[in-house]
Structure formats: structure tokens, C-alpha cells
């Protein structure tokens, strides 16, 4: 029987949405810079840092029970914040009569899209590089916006 490994949440690429998502699950975000911030929740302080194109909070997965339960709701909260931000930007773009402001909103939406695409490209490149280093042949297919990589190694 073969295995199934799935990430437990959507990777967070937009800092504003990540902070808003954390706040909706009860966290207090402080000491914010582009590279990291501190997150106070459940009586502990965690560091959220920007690595490999996404914001992540590290915990020791090797230690049983170390994954904090509040993390379960974070992915969904983040996805919701991305959706709300996109709706907000679309509404503002519709309502504004100033060309300059409209252009600024368009740019902001473009940045979000660029970050999303960059994350996918980075992660795809990492998978292909690691797979090839381990001796796999790699076949790539794109279907409905999802990338499928089939890795094959003769026995």
C-alpha cells in the first residue's frame, strides 16, 4: 500500500493576510519586519519568519504533541483572508474614479499574483532538483492550474 502525505495548511505568501489570519484565531502579532514577526498565542510566543517565499511558524515535529492545536485553523483562516483581500481590492478598483489610484490597486493585485506564482515555481524547482539528485526521472503535467510531477526510478 502506498502512502499519502499532505501539507496541513496552505502556504502563506501574503504578509498582511497572514497577520489578519493570525489575529482571527486569537494571536497578537508584534515586532513586525519583512523577514519575521513574533506571534503571541496560547500563552507562548512563536516566531513567524519568511523563508523560501512563504511565511512559516516552526515547531518541533519530531516531538509528539508539539504541534499547537491553533495551527489547525490557520490555513483556513489564511485562505479566507486572501479571498477577502482580493474582494476588497476588486471593490476599491471598481469604485475609484482616479486613474492613479486604480493603477495602484492593480499593482497590488499583481504583486499578490506574482508572489503566488513565484512560490509555485520555487517549490516546483525544489522538488525537481531534489528528485533528480535522488536519481528520479521527472515528468511534469499541468492540469486545471495544478502541477503534477511523476517521479520514476528503475528498481
Amino acid at each position, binding site marked *: 500500500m502506498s502512502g499519502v*502525505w499532505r*501539507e496541513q495548511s496552505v502556504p502563506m505568501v501574503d504578509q498582511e493576510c497572514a497577520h489578519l489570519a493570525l489575529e482571527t484565531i486569537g494571536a497578537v502579532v508584534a515586532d513586525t519586519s519583512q523577514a519575521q514577526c513574533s506571534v503571541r498565542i496560547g500563552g507562548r510566543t512563536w516566531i513567524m519568519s519568511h523563508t523560501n517565499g512563504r511565511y512559516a511558524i516552526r515547531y518541533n515535529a519530531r516531538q509528539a504533541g508539539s504541534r499547537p492545536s491553533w495551527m489547525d485553523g490557520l490555513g483556513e483562516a489564511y485562505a479566507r483572508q486572501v479571498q477577502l483581500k482580493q474582494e476588497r481590492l476588486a471593490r476599491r478598483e471598481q469604485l475609484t474614479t482616479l486613474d492613479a489610484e486604480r493603477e495602484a490597486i492593480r499593482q497590488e493585485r499583481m504583486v499578490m499574483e506574482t508572489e503566488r506564482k513565484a512560490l509555485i515555481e520555487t517549490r516546483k524547482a525544489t522538488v525537481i532538483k531534489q528528485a533528480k539528485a535522488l536519481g528520479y526521472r521527472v515528468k511534469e503535467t499541468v492540469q486545471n492550474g495544478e502541477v503534477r510531477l*511523476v517521479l520514476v*526510478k528503475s528498481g
Partner: protein
Amino acid sequence: MKIQIGHTLESSEIYGPGLRSVLWVQGCTLACKGCWNTQYWSSTGGITTSVDEIVEKWASTPELEGITLLGGEPLQQVGPVHALIRGARRMGLSVFLYTGYEPEELSTDMLDCFNMSDIVVTGRYVHELRNTNLRWRGSTNQIVHFPTPRYQALDIEEQHEVEVHLSSEGELSVYGYATDEFLTSIEVKS
């Protein structure tokens, strides 16, 4: 008719010939030592869905050659699994069934599912006989059967296969016989 399922994959290339829709049926009491999918053991986990909905989804998935049922133990929900197999065959899709049972352990209804499938892999996963270089099997005791003529001429080239899916939001999922070394290197496992 309802079925309890653990996970679905709209299309995959490593669970049988061609492009296949894959369904992990929830619930298994066989509890093989070293099982790769213990998250699908509980009969109350996963989600409840209707067989008709699943079959309709297959109809709207382009370029499918067939479906693959694994788990969990598909034959422990033999009624709905029988209905799924019938639905797939009506659409001309091939059926690949995984079961941890040996052929001689199958009840009449289970045997019906076996006989209607084009490819069946039988037998418990035996951790001591684990071999990730086998195609479609996890341990050397497991046997590939071809109950219908559809794939009887197929030459199974033994190979190690892994499939990585990257969603439009950048979320990674890995299927197949991935090693810890590979999973760690792509940050799916710490």
C-alpha cells in the same frame, strides 16, 4: 447509496495504467503492521458522500482511463464499492482494486467486486517484505491479478514511483512510495 471516504485524487498516473481517478476508502480492520495509511483505519474518519456524486465527478473528468480504489480496505464497504465499480464500467472506465484480503478470504459479494475489476492487487502489506521498487505493490507477497482481458497483455515493468501534486495555492501533496529523505528534502516532513 453512501460511502465513507478518506481522500480522493482527481487524476493520477501512478495507481495503474493511464490517467486515473483515485479514491481512498475509509476504514480498515486488517491493521497491517507498518501500514502507510493508518489515517484511513478508523471507520468514522473521512467524509460521507454519495456514490452517485463520485460517479458523476468521474464523468466530468477529462481523459480518464480508469479508476483506482484503495484505502483503508475497500471491500469492507462492499455494497458502495460494488456500486462504484458498476458505475465506472458503465462509463467504459477500467477498474483497479486494492485489497488487503487474500482471494480465498473473499465473500461472494467481495468476489463479485474482484471479478468485475480489470486489475486487483491482493494481500496484506507485510512490513518485513517491504519493497518500494515494486510497481503498484508495497510488499513482495502482494499479487497482481487480471480478472478481465483488458490488461492481460500488459507488461508490468517494476519501478519505484512517486507523484507530487502542487496546487494552485502552492500546497504540496505527495503520493506513492516516497522515502523519508525525499519528503524531508522538499519540506513535507520535518
